């Protein structure tokens, strides 16, 4: 993994609390992600890796599946104090 690149949902460890720091997709779909509850500052956990980089994200009791392309564009950082 390129350590100079920001950590993304695609590469972050499983079952670790992470905070979303950026969502680098087009405006229309970024807003949809927001409506799904995935906003900058939201704490999430990646709980399942699927094929072609797809990931399942847990946000509380909610489960959201995203494809590999999108997972690579959601930047995260380890959540502090959780």
């Amino acid at each position, binding site marked *: 993994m390129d350590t100079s690149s920001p950590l993304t949902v695609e590469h972050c460890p499983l079952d670790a609390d992470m905070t979303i720091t950026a969502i680098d997709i087009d405006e229309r779909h970024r807003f949809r992600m927001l409506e799904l509850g*995935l906003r900058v500052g939201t704490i999430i956990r990646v709980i399942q890796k*699927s094929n072609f980089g797809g990931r399942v994200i*847990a946000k509380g*009791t*909610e*489960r959201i*599946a*995203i*494809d590999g392309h*999108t997972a690579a564009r959601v930047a995260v950082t380890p959540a502090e104090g959780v």
Partner: protein
Amino acid sequence: MTSHHQGHRRGIAALLPSPHAHDDDTHAGHTHAGKPCCDTGGRRVAGDGMPRIVFIGNPNVGKSSLFNAILGAKTRVMNAPGTTVLLEEGVYDHGGEDWDLIDTPGTYSLLPLSPDEEVAAKAVMGTGGQGAPDAVVAVVDATNISRALYFLATVLELGRPTIVALTMNDLAAKQGAGIDAGELSQALDGVPVVEVNGRTGAGRQALMDAVAAHLGGTPMPHGLAPVDPAHIDVQAWVEGGADARFDWAADVLSCLDMHARDRVTVSDRIDRVLLNPVLGIVVFLLLMLGMFEATTTLAGPAQDWIDGSVRDWLTTGIDWVFALFGPSALDTWFHSLVIDGVIDGVITIGTFIPPMGIMFILLSLLEDSGYLARAAFVMDRAMRCMGLDGRAFLPIVIGFGCNLPALAATRTLPDSRQRVLVGMLVPFSSCTARLSVYLVLAYAFFRDQAGLVVFLMYVCSIVLILLVGVLLKQVRFRDVRSEPFAMSLPPYQVPRLVTLVKSVLMRLWGFVHGASSIIISMLVVMWFLQAIPATAAAGSFAHVDDVHDSVYGVVADRVAPVFAPAGFNDWHASAALMTGFVAKEVVVASMAQSYSIDTGDEDEQQQGEGSLGAAMRASFDESSGGHGRAAAVAFMLFTLAYTPCLATVAELRRQYSMKIAMQSVGLGLIVAYILAVVAFQTLRWVL
């Protein structure tokens, strides 16, 4: 008359939708399109006096199950005006007062990303020619409460009387996040909240009572500002207020006594297998194989029983009734019409009930269990090349068994454009009915390589689906493109038997109801064409000895020259293809009949290698100038690509519209003709 139905199995079916299904005019009458609402004593009701209640919510929250539990068999499916987006509607009797209930496609937002979401948004906003709802039932999923509250906030801001139907609360409770409906209502400043269970129907009466009690209006919770959807920039309103709505949702959540624990659930454990990068695909493919087998192998004996025993019983019964009028009644044209036209139609519909019933059961199981959303995720990448949802894989695979249940399976696609695109691709899936044609011709013309030839026809089918898919995407579905995949996964649930049986019976009734009229009328037309003598020596009405001497034979003669560039300018072939338009199962029987060959109980190999094969070789060699094998390949390719059967045409019309059904027929004929001509003109140099 010798009818074509002999040897016919599981095939001839043609269907017209019910008089109201997909009828935009009818729909308009029920949704009060363009009609102003009026004030009836403080209650807004639509133009025809029926309050219009719109159900809205996120996808996979049990909204449709709840809707069906409330309405039961009174539910009917229709297209939203001017679209192929499906809406469910029904009239509900509440204490003697009729309400117009409308179920909308699931959506995460009132800012739509697809036509389906647009229809849902317009229905709840009362824009786009749709009347304003007199009340909104907002279905809120307790297991995804923060997102559901965000969406609820946008719905509440519309200012319509809104009643919250709280679903999945039992699952939320298992996760330690159960919600008290009264507490939530209090947190919403008195907006009524009713806990319901769409799978069991529990709470539905209380919900409808709450709707009745609040048709006059519901409170606007503090922190939300009402808007007039007819006079706002929807995008600016939805986007501009998003943060405030999330803050509002957080405030509401803080008022609730919830003990949500972020822990590993049973669904998470199941997903470790079903969404595993490797196992997930293996399980999905095994499920597809199971569904394929169920709709073909498992349904086969039941279809044979209906086509054999039930047909015999009906025929015997009708013969008995006719015999009451004397022995000569059995030899009348009317007796022939009833047996070879009407009863053939009834049996044809009957033979499609087993595979359709099995498909409806399996679809309900997949939907109700929560797996279908996972299937979309697992196959997302594979179908992305055509801009399709992962769920599109299902109908295409099923199509290789039978195209009819495959078209039914397109209903699982949430995007109406994708639904139509896949619906137009399904007929290119080589169903088992076409296999009988391949086998006979392969053994007749390529005895030693028959297996290879049949295999290559299936390869051609897959290539055709891909090529036509890419072509349609470029020409007709340019707006269908790969979208980022982001979907909420519902928790797994064990499907309820009673709900499943009800749902399957309702769907089956919809199919039979839509099927019966056109199938019978088309077969009656076919009967008349074959019953009318066209030559002096042909015999009398309904007693034409040779089908070539009937009007049907004359039409086949006229059509045959069209196929000269494909190498089979022969009336036997064109008559078989015309009959094959009704059902592919009858192509071989039609050929045998036109050559006056009794194939008896011979299987396809014996037919191909026997006298039928010899007659076909002679005909095709003659019509192709000595390139019979090239013409045979062209004939098989034409059979592969043109309309599978009238049943699929009618189902396309029932599911989408007559225009799309006709486009599909035209596309199939054009592709089939080009394919056959190119194949013959190329292969005649080597075969």
